[in-house]
């Protein structure tokens, strides 16, 4: 039984079939990339896992548990963290506050103890801060720690978003186009961090990507989508050379080889 399994996922918006019976499975500790041209339905998969959209058919299983119909916040409690394509940070808060929010699922206090700020709440706060500082160290965010997020450059904001997801201590990490808008250096940094996350923290990663070199370097297995349907799934080398995949990206007439 795979760590995360998606079976026959189908989503339609009105008449448009955004996803049509897409199935894939992810082994524990893998980096699994989902590729495809724009509009193929990649972010839709993430939105469904996050329960932002409802599935019309099919289901997913995390470690064998069916999580197709749970409430959105329960998905986070089960250990699935996510970053967003268009950054969804809390703009008026500082970096450290954003990371602390990632710790929300560890909240063990209730409203009354918090209003009185008892010793246990205090202890929990300090633990959260310690963990958040670890994430800051891991991602080298020290210079930006107390700055409001809205004033940071785009690359740093993306890193903060990644940090926020890591602060959740997830079992499964969903990264939506993490390298879009990043230059070569930042993309290299990202690749290093991904391999660190995979090896040191043992987190399974699900990746939506456009950057083919990045996919080839960083991922263990790849799924290619087009028009909401799965085209190929397998090792990066195999999938990227597959003629259907090349047709999806380059069109029918393409006599060019994918680089």
């Amino acid at each position, binding site marked *: 039984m795979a760590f995360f399994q998606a079976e026959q996922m189908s989503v339609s918006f009105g008449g448009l079939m955004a996803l049509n019976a897409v199935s894939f499975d992810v082994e524990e500790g893998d980096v699994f990339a989902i590729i495809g041209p724009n509009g193929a339905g990649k972010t839709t998969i993430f939105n469904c896992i996050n329960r932002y959209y409802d599935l019309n058919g099919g289901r997913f299983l995390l470690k064998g548990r069916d999580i197709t119909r749970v409430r959105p916040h329960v998905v986070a409690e089960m250990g699935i963290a996510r970053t967003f394509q268009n950054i969804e940070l809390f703009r008026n808060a500082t970096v450290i506050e954003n990371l*602390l929010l990632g710790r929300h699922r560890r909240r063990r206090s209730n409203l009354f103890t918090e209003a009185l700020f008892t010793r246990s709440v205090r202890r929990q706060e300090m633990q959260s801060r310690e963990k958040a500082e670890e994430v800051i160290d891991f991602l080298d965010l020290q210079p930006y720690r107390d700055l409001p997020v809205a004033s940071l450059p785009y690359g740093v904001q993306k890193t903060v978003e990644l940090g926020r997801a890591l602060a959740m201590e997830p079992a499964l990490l969903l990264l939506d186009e993490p390298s879009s808008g990043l230059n070569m250096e930042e993309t290299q940094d990202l690749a290093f961090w991904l391999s660190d996350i995979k090896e040191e923290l043992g987190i399974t990663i699900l990746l939506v990507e456009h950057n083919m070199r990045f996919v080839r370097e960083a991922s263990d297995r790849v799924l290619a989508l087009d028009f909401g349907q799965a085209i190929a799934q397998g090792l990066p080398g195999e999938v990227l050379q597959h003629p259907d995949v090349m047709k999806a990206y380059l069109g029918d007439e393409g006599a060019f080889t994918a680089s």
Partner: protein
Amino acid sequence: MRFEMKRSYYQDIRLFKYRSTFFWYLALLAGCILVPLLLDDYFRSQLTFICLYSTVTVSLMLLSGYTGQISLGHAAFFAIGSYTSAILTTKGVPFLLALPAAGVLSALVGIVIGLPALRLSGLYLAIATMGFAFIVEEILARWETVTQGNLGMLVDPPSVGSFSFDTELRYFYLAFFILILTVLAARNILRSPTGRAMIAIRDSEVAAQAMGVNLAKFKTMAFAISAFFTGIGGSLYAHKLTFISPECYTILVSIEFLAMIIIGGLGSLHGAVYGTAFIIFLPQLIILSKGYLPASVADQTGLEPALYGLMIMLFILLEPMGIYGIWRKTKFYFEMFPLYKKDTFRREKKYFKAERH
């Protein structure tokens, strides 16, 4: 500029950032306790109103400023608190029980109102709360068996045992004490996970849900907390005025509360108190300034609401951070002196909204 060397995590979560801040607050506390002994009853009464309205505005700030849920219907919670306390004390329930009961009943109603709020946002929520406030006002006027309708209700001054709060001075200390408790509770909530979740809901609901924040629970909680303290403020109000009627709780009162938090500065608890003080002293200021205006303008009864509306507009246009913003900018100017740059707090000019939502 002061730099802080932080040596422990506790320093991040302390209530007072610097030691000097603690002493300033202590001085403020001493001032608030001692100064009313020197003032006359009129000023004591005004200060009492500031305290009890601040209880309401601090809680409204938690709801609207920090959780981002606009509520145009807080007068309804205020009214429910007032009437609950009035009815219970008339039936012989001691004040010490009636006060929290007023808060609890308001909180329950707040939860009921919070439920539709889960699906609404922004303007729709504002309109829904406004509609709700109208309905409550009408119920209060028509449910004559309980609330005596438009005739109003007489309320006794509160008493704990044999000690009765019937002088202005005693009532001020009561209201001030309750305000301190409210502010402490609010600060504690804000520095704990609940407070962060509330800010998250304001800034990005989608991300908050992805982080495990149960939107339904926290939005309802925000409404409940806000309604609780507003109900308590309402109870104090009823016992102070000793006569209440549904006319005291119209939509204009809701708007007044909102004006207080906007003029004070959205997003800070200090702002709630500053804004309340400003609005309560505004009639005094207008009376003072009437001497400088030509008689034809000064004699009008409409002058006060006109200036009121004008103040709201000017603050939003020119100083959106409110009075607290002015205070922070002044403090920053002096801290940075003489290196303060004129455009430090300049807002970015936007020409249109690039995104729909």
